[in-house]
């Protein structure tokens, strides 16, 4: 019996590879060639590469509905593209880049699958940021949701080429700041704590204060100790004046410079630098007071 060598065996035709899914299934590399399309569909009117370009153009313009129509037409004619990696990202909005999602959300009405994907993608980080500002799970969820509402109300102005997560965080921080200012006006917070911030503190050792002599390796902590530490960090942050909390979060988690923070508050870079040092010092003092995470003596 003669067995042909593998090297000399021609590859099976595409309809076989695809399980005969479609009568006209062709290799993707031939689909984009002019004249290879069949007749009777939108995809027939133009080579597949042109359809692809039109889909991209529609998504760039935020017209997700048109993009889906074009895609459906292309797939009806060329089912093989379902399996082509370069086409996979079209199917699932969660695989779209932010720019496409934002463009689709900017439209009237906004594209819901795109909004779902955008909210899902950035929710976790936004919530975490809100949690550190509010120190309350429910308030953090409300704040994050309100930030989204604010963004949706002004969604026509969203920039597709901007840093969307940073923008989200800024909106949430601004909302939180407005709220604590309103609370302060209503007498809910001690003005003295805020007034004292005008004096820059220069008595400690700066932004990067080590807690190394106080805290063990955070990742090496047992679960119960991690839970305790979370509470302690929250307590330490809660003891800070809201301005200091905001400044520490903006500086260390938002990556803003003291000058940038200062512009927002109408204060000098030096003043903000003093606030950062004061915040660090107060957190450090809190952990020194509790002494809970003072590491044990080294083992013999």
């Amino acid at each position: 019996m003669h067995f042909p060598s593998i090297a000399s065996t021609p590859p099976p035709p595409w309809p076989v590879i695809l399980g005969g899914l479609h009568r006209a299934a062709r290799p993707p590399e031939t689909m984009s060639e002019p004249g290879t399309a069949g007749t009777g569909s939108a995809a027939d009117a133009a080579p597949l590469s042109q359809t692809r370009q039109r889909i991209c153009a529609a998504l760039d313009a935020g017209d997700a509905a048109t993009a889906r129509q074009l895609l459906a037409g292309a797939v009806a004619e060329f089912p093989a593209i379902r399996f082509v990696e370069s086409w996979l990202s079209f199917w699932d909005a969660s695989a779209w880049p932010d720019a496409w999602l934002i463009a689709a959300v900017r439209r009237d009405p906004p594209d819901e699958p795109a909004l779902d994907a955008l909210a899902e993608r950035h929710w976790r980080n936004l919530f975490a940021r809100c949690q550190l500002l509010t120190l309350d799970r429910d308030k953090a969820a409300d704040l994050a949701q309100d930030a989204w509402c604010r963004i949706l109300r002004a969604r026509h102005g969203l920039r597709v080429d901007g840093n969307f997560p940073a923008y989200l965080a800024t909106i949430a921080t601004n909302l939180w700041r407005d709220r604590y200012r309103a609370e302060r006006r209503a007498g809910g917070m001690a003005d003295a704590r805020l007034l004292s911030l005008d004096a820059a503190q220069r008595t400690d050792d700066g932004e990067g204060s080590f807690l190394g002599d106080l805290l063990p390796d955070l990742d090496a902590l047992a679960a119960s100790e991690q839970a305790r530490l979370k509470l302690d960090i929250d307590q330490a942050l809660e003891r800070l004046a809201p301005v200091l909390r905001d400044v520490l979060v903006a500086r260390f988690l938002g990556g803003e410079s003291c000058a940038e923070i200062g512009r927002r508050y109408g204060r000098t870079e030096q003043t903000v630098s003093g606030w950062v040092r004061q915040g660090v010092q107060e957190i450090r003092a809190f952990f020194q007071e509790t002494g809970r995470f003072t590491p044990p003596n080294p083992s013999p």
Partner: protein
Amino acid sequence: MKTETTVEKMLRWRLEQAGTEAPPAPRASRLLALARPWWELWPERARQLCDRLGRIEMAYGHAMERGGGSRTGYPVPALLLRGDAEIEASARLLYFTARDGELRLRFVLELPPEAAQPPEATWEVTFVEEGATPRFLAVAALSVEREYRIEASLPPALAAGWAGLKVTDRMPFRFILGPAPAKE
């Protein structure tokens, strides 16, 4: 085991922990429902306010005639919501452009003497088009003296229509100013 831990590192660790404990993201349908403008949430209240706003036009007709030849443009009838009070007023536009979908507008509120008080720092301004239809919401911030400034992106449907407007034109909108009767 012990490492040198900075406050930054500790905060980042806490942030990461908070992220892992985040509740599920709200669905788009919920976010969109929450973000609906006040006139969609309370259509009856919106209709009442727009009706009243429409009637102001008559009372300010004379002022509008005077305003037509001025450098600053026509006054825009405005209804101020201050607490429970509804105050009829007008806004004199000082500057208006709506290029590339970006609205830039400055105005001064002209209030009846009995309503004069220190100016509010911000107003939420609802643009009500001819036909008493609220179309657009933006925040106006006090800049100098009694002058308010709006910088906002326009919905595409308005951007095209307003692009050619000049400050000296009679504006196709009126204002409702105030904290919108929304849940926020």
